[in-house]
């Protein structure tokens, strides 16, 4: 295993009048050992058990030997500079990478002790269990009702129309959208505001009663008010779901997550309880990142 010595190149030029406060004690780690992660990457009751995960795009290794546990009903945030592999790693968890031809995944990924990448595994069922919400709200150009009902329909979750109505209502309620849209379920979803659309996408994801919800920068296209609503929602959902959220905003990670994982150039550099990561990062790269020295 080769060792990679990455130092923060911009450090030298960093202007003196930086206003973000700096930790008193300097972090111990300064280099990246491939496969080694600072902090607490493992958990006792893991929902996902991910070991030595590597992801290749053609020849490029986008994820470099990452091992991580994601606990049950935990909210874990992935942070890191752009292009560091957060999305790639996230999309392994429900095999959304399958549709990219050149993408290959290596290592062992288990959901409740069953291999995710088992060739015999039914992707449809997996994705029904591991839902996903995307960066840009992407409602189907159909009615609000049909958007939420789509998943239950294709999975045959409802026998009767009334069952379906119930599922739709419940999902919209959980997503905090019911009151806003209950009178216009037949209106097309694309006419809603961005924040509403994103909440609709969350409603759509939870309508199939997944166990895990993956969110890839769910607020980056939203205004502050809508963002606040979504964050609120995540807090509520965390009671019954396991949530993995990718965010480019450290503040957001700090607000919503229990644990935070810091990615850097395909490495998982540090994982720890969120307040620990932000108050006393153990790795120098993490510290540089959260103090805004790059990214």
């Amino acid at each position, binding site marked *: 295993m080769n060792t990679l010595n990455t130092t923060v190149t911009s450090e030298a030029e960093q202007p003196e009048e930086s206003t973000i406060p700096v930790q008193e004690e300097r972090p111990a780690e300064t280099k990246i050992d491939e496969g080694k992660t600072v902090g607490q990457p493992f958990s006792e009751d893991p929902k996902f058990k991910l070991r030595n995960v590597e992801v290749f795009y053609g020849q490029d290794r986008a994820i470099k030997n990452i091992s991580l546990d994601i606990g049950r009903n935990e909210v874990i945030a992935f942070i890191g500079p752009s292009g560091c592999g957060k999305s790639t790693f996230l999309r392994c968890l429900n095999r959304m990478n399958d549709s990219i031809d050149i993408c290959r995944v290596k290592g062992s990924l288990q959901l409740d002790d069953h291999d995710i990448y088992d060739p015999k595994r039914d992707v449809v069922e997996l994705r029904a269990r591991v839902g996903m919400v995307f960066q840009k709200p992407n409602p189907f150009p159909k009615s609000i009702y049909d958007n939420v009902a789509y998943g239950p*329909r294709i999975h*045959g*979750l*409802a026998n009767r129309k009334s069952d379906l109505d119930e599922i739709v209502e419940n999902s919209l309620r959980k997503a905090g959208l019911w009151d806003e849209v209950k009178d216009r379920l037949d209106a097309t979803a694309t006419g809603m505001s961005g924040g509403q659309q994103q909440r609709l996408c969350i409603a759509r994801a939870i309508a199939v009663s997944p166990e895990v919800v993956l969110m890839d920068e769910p607020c980056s296209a939203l205004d502050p008010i809508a963002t606040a609503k979504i964050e609120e929602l995540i807090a509520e959902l965390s009671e019954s779901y396991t949530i993995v959220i990718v965010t480019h905003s450290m503040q957001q990670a700090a607000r919503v997550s229990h644990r935070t994982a810091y990615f850097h150039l395909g490495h998982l550099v540090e994982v720890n309880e969120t307040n620990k990561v932000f108050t006393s990062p153990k790795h120098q790269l993490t510290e540089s990142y959260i103090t805004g020295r790059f990214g």
Partner: protein
Amino acid sequence: MQPANLMLLVIVCIAVAYGLGYARSRSLAMPMGGIRHLKSLPFYYGARAALWCGIPALIVLALWAAFQGKVIQLLVIGSLPPELVPEGEGRASLLLSQISNVASGALPPGFVEAPVAEAAERLKSLRAQSRLYMTVLVVAVAVLAGFLGWLRIRPTLNARSQVETTLKWIFFACAALAILTTVGIVFSVAFETIRFFQKISFFEFFFGTQWSPQTALRADQVAAEGAFGMVPLFTGTLLISAIAMVVAVPVGLLSAIYLSEYANKRVRGIFKPLLEMLAGIPTVVYGFFAALTVAPFISDFAASFGIDASSQSALAAGGVMGIMIIPFVSSLSDDVINAVPQNLRDGSLALGATQSETMKKVIFPAALPGIMGGVLLAVSRAIGETMIVVMAAGLAANLTANPLESVTTVTVQIVTLLTGDQEFDSAKTLAAFALGAMLFVATLLLNVLALKIVRKYREQYD
């Protein structure tokens, strides 16, 4: 039953099979506590049953419809008295045509020999029988297969993946069909071209400056020995295309610039479709316009200056062709100009450049490769254009660069060569294929080149 009606019946069977399959899967699911315990949605069980029912039935129907004619013919001919049995395919087709004309009433039965009239009767009854058997067989197959499919419905059956796989194969078959036919057909033209080059040397064809392909039709006829030099055709084609481009490029380009940079949305919304309308007008209409209006006008106009202009001047055909091509140039240039990123435009404007300065000094140079690609595409269009030149250009293979003279083109000659004699046994008819192949290759090269340029240019900004 007629195949068309039978088809309807099969469709009904398919619908029934779907319904039954759907219902069965639901009834299987209910005791288990709802359809979520099925492997697939009821819809897929229904669809699977429908496929089981429909595909074999339709295959049987298609096969039957395809072969019944042949089989009936054999039966009818087989039952004729020996002296009437035709020898040779042509005779057989005649006799069959006669029999079926009698059967359909186009020929009076009294008019033909008795056995033929009898055969016509037999033909009628055989056809009726065939229809009956076909109906019975197809329906039987549909019901049986549908029933089997229905029977095998299990909650654990992954009907969805089966249906989807079938559908995928159907899509694949269509893609294969579309591609194979086209590719196969290209080969057949290549084949005739090879035969041509077995008769006429490569060298003569490409470098000969004489074109007189009308060779003798019969052994005892005196006609041209045949000269198959494509140089005059090629230069003629190029002359007309060049004239077309002289008209189309400046007009098309400037219109594109105006519409994309100056015109406001409303003006653009009106004029762009109007310009594109020029591309939608059939070429025969342009040919008509060129031959009957523009060409006489040009020769009269030239005559009023004492200049001698042919009534089929390259100018008339080329000019009208240029008008036809304007929208190709303009919409391609429009695309390319719009693809130049806004930030270049902003960059220039922010320095205090006027719009035309921005256009001329920044956008146009940046878009030039793309525009060149577009122009090449338009050239390939002009080279392959047929009707305008057939109607308005000449037939004489003149080697000239004078736009007021008449020249002929590759496409005109293809049409001329293939009227009259169409047996592919002489260099003359095969020459049409050789010309076609050359045209194909030339336009292909131009297109590949143009697409390469356009694409490369796109990449520059992506």
